[in-house]
């Protein structure tokens, strides 16, 4: 087969355009490097793709899906949301080992998941990098080393917040915070009574214009994609500006197949399948940044086998694919009578919570699980959608004026609490290349193994009791029954969409694939810049750290290239 090879040798090929790939593209083009960006999905056009401000009645199916998928539990994601992503991609399957459970969400679009993500932006703490309990390995970096990179990341993407001086929620370079909504005021009072902190949230939405991006106009629809780019996305804030530099070559619809190693043992080209023509092409490079999302990055490395790298490129340690984690998830909702018939006002604000609960029991040695979690809050008057009142319909039978009155009374009176906790890496949770199955492009797919341990189950039980206490202290009534005692209602692995750990960093090449700059120990011109390098899964959503680590890795890569070390 004839393979179409790019005549140009790019300084760097970046694989993936989400938080990590976007950051690499921005930093490397700022440094004058020539960059080619491979993205498995199409180009993003916010004007066409984002459904911000559209009312449900402006669409025939009102968001239920062209074939009413929502009503049959088959909708991939909310119709109005902006992920261009899926739990199942027919052409790109994966398998799960028998007896295990795992779900894998993938976006296929320029910007990846940053077009729609929750934008919760929390720094990892000092103890996250250097765990004191010995249950997971230390990172090869400290908080103090990372702090300046967090400053840069926050300064660029824009993060709301207040300085609180909490060890569990390190302060940053914050934009002004935003006023709490009515239900959030009640939750704050409830937390105060229980001795739990509840502080202004740290979100990547611009409460003030910075870096040429307009300030937020508070429509609360960030998950639909933001046409004014006031909510951070790598597509709008990083990649589109980089396209104007003339340094960036976009290659979309490109499914990376393999990193090609030359005689020197370095990556000389990236082989990919051009989805439109189903032909294999190669783009040549001096260095590569893999940022395809934790599991896709591991897959690409594992599929890059050669005589020199029989277990996959950069996998001399055997760690590629190992230590797969996701955040621990648990949610509890309730009805708050104090909010019944609340005087109407516009509570849209920024999408998601205006205040949140950082971890508060760091020094409690008596609890039944290690590490911790934070609590995300939901509530307020949202734009009515299909399903907004399914909860009321489940609680209230009958019909007629009394149903209408109940719905009006309860509108805006429901609140939800969602825990996002730390999972300890375990030997039963990992991914590998499926021995049989390939995707529509002929590329071997991933087979997942995933199990929670008792640590996570106990943590979820603690979440249930805490959320119940917070709700009841404000006079709320918890919805739903007590969860299944065996699983305690824990989320399915992968469902929180915070995969990490599968190409981990470390000081020892025998037990890690990357050094502290996200650079392969074995292949000096190979970098991994998503959440795959993360040694653990702190209870602080990964995206801000992906940006900080990718920024640092990219500056290091540029410097090493200038010195001729790569």
């Amino acid at each position, binding site marked *: 087969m004839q393979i179409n090879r790019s005549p140009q040798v790019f300084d760097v090929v970046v694989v993936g355009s989400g938080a990590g790939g976007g950051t690499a593209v921005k930093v490397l083009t700022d440094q004058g490097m020539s960059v080619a960006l491979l993205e498995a999905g199409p180009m993003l056009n*916010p*004007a066409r793709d984002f*459904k911000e*401000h*559209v*009312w449900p*009645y*402006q669409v025939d*199916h*009102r968001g*239920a899906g*062209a*074939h*009413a998928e929502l009503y*049959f539990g088959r909708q991939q994601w909310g119709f109005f949301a902006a992920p261009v992503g899926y739990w199942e991609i027919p052409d790109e399957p994966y398998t799960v080992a028998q007896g295990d459970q795992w779900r894998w969400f993938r976006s296929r679009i320029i910007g990846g998941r940053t077009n729609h993500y929750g934008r919760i932006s929390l720094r990892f703490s000092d103890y996250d990098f250097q765990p004191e309990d010995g249950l997971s390995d230390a990172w090869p970096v400290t908080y103090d080393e990372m702090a300046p990179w967090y400053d840069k990341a926050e300064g660029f993407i824009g993060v709301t917040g207040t300085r609180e001086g909490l060890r569990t929620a390190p302060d940053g370079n914050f934009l002004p915070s935003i*006023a709490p909504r*009515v239900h959030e*005021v*009640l939750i704050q*009072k409830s937390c105060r009574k229980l001795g739990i902190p509840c502080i202004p949230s740290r979100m990547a939405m611009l409460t003030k*214009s910075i870096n*040429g991006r*307009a300030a937020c*106009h*508070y*429509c609360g*629809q960030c998950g639909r994609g933001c*046409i*004014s780019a006031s909510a951070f996305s790598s597509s709008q804030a990083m990649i589109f500006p980089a396209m104007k530099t003339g340094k960036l070559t976009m290659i979309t619809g490109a499914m990376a197949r393999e990193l090609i190693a030359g005689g020197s043992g370095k990556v000389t080209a990236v082989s990919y399948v051009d989805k439109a023509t189903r032909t294999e092409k190669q783009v040549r490079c001096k260095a590569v940044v893999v940022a395809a999302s934790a599991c896709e990055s591991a897959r690409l490395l594992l599929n890059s086998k050669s005589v020199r790298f029989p277990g996959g490129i950069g996998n001399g340690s055997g760690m590629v694919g190992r230590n797969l984690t996701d955040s621990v998830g648990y949610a509890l909702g309730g009805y*708050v*009578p*104090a*909010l*019944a018939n609340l005087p*109407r*006002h*516009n*509570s849209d*604000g*920024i999408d998601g919570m205006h205040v949140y609960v950082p971890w508060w029991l760091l020094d409690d040695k008596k609890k039944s699980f290690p590490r911790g979690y934070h609590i995300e809050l939901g509530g307020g*008057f949202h*734009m*009515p959608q*299909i399903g*907004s*009142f*399914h909860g*009321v*319909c489940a609680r209230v*039978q*009958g*019909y*007629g*004026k009394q*149903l*209408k009155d109940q*719905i*009006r009374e309860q509108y805006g009176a429901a609140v939800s609490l969602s825990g996002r906790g730390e999972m300890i890496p375990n030997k039963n949770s990992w991914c590998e290349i499926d021995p049989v199955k390939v995707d529509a492009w002929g590329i071997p797919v991933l087979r997942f193994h995933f199990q929670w341990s008792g640590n996570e189950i106990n943590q979820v039980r603690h979440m249930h009791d805490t959320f119940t206490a917070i709700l009841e*202290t404000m*006079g709320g009534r918890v919805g739903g029954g007590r969860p299944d005692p065996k699983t305690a209602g824990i989320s399915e692995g992968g469902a929180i969409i915070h995969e990490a750990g599968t190409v981990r960093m470390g000081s020892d090449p025998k037990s890690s694939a990357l050094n502290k700059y996200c650079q392969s120990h074995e292949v000096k011109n190979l970098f991994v810049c998503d959440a795959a390098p993360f040694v653990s899964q702190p209870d602080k959503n990964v995206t801000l750290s992906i940006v900080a680590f990718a920024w640092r890795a990219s500056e290091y890569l540029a410097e090493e290239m200038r010195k001729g070390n790569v």
Partner: protein
Amino acid sequence: MSEDLEYSRRELLRHIAISLSLGAAGERVLTARDAQHVHAAVAQEESAQNGPYQPKALTGHEYATLQRIAGLVLPADERSPGALAANAAAFLDFLCSASDEMKRIYTGGLEWLDDAMRHRGNGGDFLSASPERQTAMLDLIAFRENQAEHADLAAGIDFFAWARQMIVDAYYTSPIGIKELGYMGNTAVAHFSVPQEAIDYAVKRSPFA
């Protein structure tokens, strides 16, 4: 989304791009007025529908029956029009045209309803029954516990749960339903604030009063 809506959104977004102007401090500012213009204009789309809705999937009889049920589930009252005026049945019919699975739920359910009316009364179907007999039937199928006493109601209870939930969806996602709820968002504001009276209202009614 219709082609027209797509087109006008493109225009509006172009307008946004133009109105993103450099402010005094070099800030890019989308004025609240410009953003509001965009929201309002998008909202005006499509409301210009031509003539009454013609059912695509259901027969005239089925559609009329569904309209009657919609009117009973969420009636007009002194505050607002009900699900009949909000064309809830049109949304249900549209989804029946989009999904065979959905269509079976409605054609089967409505047939069950007529059949049950005939067996329990003087031979007429649901639509031709008196309002009292219509609500008497709904009183049977709107409550899950009735199934214990009347096992033959199971299919009707199941159907009514589908219809009721989707009528609720249709109504509250319509302009009439959104107004009835009093949702005031989907708009652009320069600053976000929470009215003190709303906070006071909730706190006074809470255990923290």
